[in-house]
């Protein structure tokens, strides 16, 4: 598993490459969870993740739940068709903001209002 982090945009972008399963889930969790801080914006690029196991999926859910606690926002980008299908069949897809491209993700994040923004 290769994990790249890019802070050069308005949102932090984490790019994962490789299978996300019980072997790689701990390192992904260790790398991503610290990025979810109060009010942070995070894009997780999964376009190079061909396979996600039950453990991998739970890592993403953990990140998502942490984001909720911290009033921050996470967007998944570039889901492979198989991965998306698994998320859909298990109902987890509805837990995430999912976008097809980085531009769409930026746009989606710009519309996610923090409570003080007064946005609905």
């Amino acid at each position: 598993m290769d994990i790249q982090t890019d802070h050069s945009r308005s949102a932090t972008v984490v790019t994962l490459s490789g299978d996300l399963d019980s072997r790689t889930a701990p390192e992904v969790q260790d790398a991503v969870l610290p990025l979810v801080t109060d009010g942070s914006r995070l894009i997780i690029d999964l376009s190079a993740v061909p396979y996600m196991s039950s453990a991998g999926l739970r890592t993403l859910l953990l990140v998502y739940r942490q984001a909720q606690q911290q009033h921050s926002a996470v967007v998944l980008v570039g889901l492979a068709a198989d991965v998306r299908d698994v998320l859909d069949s298990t109902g987890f897809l509805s837990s995430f903001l999912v976008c097809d491209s980085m531009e769409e993700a930026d746009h989606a994040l710009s519309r996610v209002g923090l409570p003080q923004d007064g946005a609905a």
Partner: protein
Amino acid sequence: MNTGQPHLVRDRIDAFPTHQIAGYDVRPGRALPFGAVPVSGGINFSLFSGPATAVSLVLFRRGDAEPVAELPFPDEFRVGGVWSMTVFALDYDNVEYGFRVTGPEHPQLGDRFDSSRILADPYARAMSGHERWGEQPDPNLSYPYRSRLVFDDFDWDGDRPLRLPSEELVVYELHVRGFTRHPSSGVTHPGTYAALVEKIPYLRELGVNCVELMPVFEFDEFENHRWNEDGELLYNYWGYSTVDFFAPKAGYAATGPLGMQCDEFRNLIKEFHKAGIQVVLDVVFNHTAEGNERGPMINFRGLDNRTFYMLTPEGYYYNFSGTGNTLNCNNPVVRDMVLSCLRFWASEYHIDGFRFDLAAVLGRGPDGAPMANPPLLESLAYDPLLRDCLLVAEAWDAGGLYQVGSFPHYFRWSEWNGKYRDTVRSFLKGDLGQVGELATRLVGSPDLYATRGAHSSVNFISCHDGFTLADLFAYTDKHNLANGENNGDGANDNNSWNCGVEGDTDDPEILALRRRQIRNAMSLLLISQGIPMFVAGDEIGRSQSGNNNAYCHDSPLSWLDWSLQEQNADLFRFVRNLIAFRAAHPMLRSRRHPTGSIEDGGSVVSWHGTQVGRPDWSPGSRLLAMSRTGLDADGEPDHVYVATNAHWEWHDLELPELPSGLRWARFVDTTAEAPDDVASVGAEQDLDDQRSIPVGPRSVVILVARPVEPST
């Protein structure tokens, strides 16, 4: 001292190994709960076996034929007959496990230990080895039914069991695979839990609020598989033969090959609940998939055969289930397993209720004799965790015990009312001498359930077992040749009638009569007190070509053909409106049988024939009418009149007089062709003649009192 930060227990002093066995870090486990559950740093394995002398935990890498390690339980890891061990740092996704159990080997005393075999964990939360429906694993595998580890966390989003009062239910019985497997279903993953989610809008439109899922505990569709004369592979398709009581069937999950069947099934339940639909599981505790002494050794047989099965004095298997063995469910250990299992599904999967297959077996003692006060049934009735669950008994078994109306109920159990089915079928086909009993069945069978309430009666005319509703009126005889048993299997006492020609016909009169009979049946079912149930597809006229025992067909014969939805849209509308009518008239679904007064929320029933108040109870009668008076949802008096004529002639029926300001309006007349066969609820058509109504041959008429329209 308050530091402002709550003290959180993040580490435990037992989160470290004490031993190393076969290269794995381990420590003595916790005896309870049984099965494999995640604990701090590892997995806790716990297994019960009373007489075992040695037990090993056998670990496999996922899919490998041979084990990767075998860890004998040290004697100090045993408490009583329970062997437990915590194993650290296991790869959750990729481990399969089983047990090797050594014990006394004397079959004549009932022991069948075999230390050459690897046994599945009877409490395993998931099973692998059969995760793709219809793909048979290598039959030479030494360990074919493999226990798996699963994550037991799930994001329920605030979901909880719906706790609908049981008398409010309309139950829809369905087979998870058969419901969406047909190419016409238009779903992404046919035959799966995920596909069922896509069909929830259909069920909402129909108006049912409870689905009863035919067995979803792990079973092996290849059990007793064979080919019929046409070369068709026959399966254990229905699945009434459990391999693992704690695991949802992986072959029903689109994500089963990824081991995510538990998540997918939980999501299905969550989605059903969001739609206001309860989920009841059809559970099979009367026997297991291990069969008799010639059957496979999967789990219980090699763990503690004498405890788990009812055995003859010679050590052979009693067969009250008709399938080879009988689970010894009133043994305290087995009872505990059954109770744990149901508590698990109710709490971990938010299941709303259970229907118990051949439940009369659950009232038999270890020697097979029916017990007066069966501890298992009592335990389930009083269990606090199951308090809000519907408990429904199929109150008979294959050993000749028939307990409809007499099942040990503890004022808690409901029953599949087989007498309801038999009476309504006999009456509709025109049998004589049915009118008196029909009357009793329409008002919730007070002869059987007076002390328990009408909701104790699950009324049904069709279910998975037997003819579909459409076939009930198209076939006089069963046509089970495709089952490969020379038409010898399946029930013979069907009380069915083909309306003139056996099977397919293009005779318009016969087809019209069949349409009418289906509507008659649905009408009576949905105005009867008790919990109505029908089998998936009856609302759109599904046929099984006269096969009344399609348990072995994974084919279009047993799948729901969704093109019927368009073809029989008028029947769908008829059933949908009937369900809405039932919802609009609380007295029809009250748990109180008619009380003779509408005071205090009670209801009144009056019986009629061609003359008001003069029902014909004579043996030659085929006509019955009733009027019901009760209170509607606003507490106002509500009047419904139902006439059913199983005779082949028209009859004019005198109508009961309504209080002033009310007039009879027609909701259903099955003599009329669609769309005039049924009105929308609230748009029932005022009758010109308020004194009498003609009731056609073999038909049902339903009227409702409506306020007089102010004259303009």
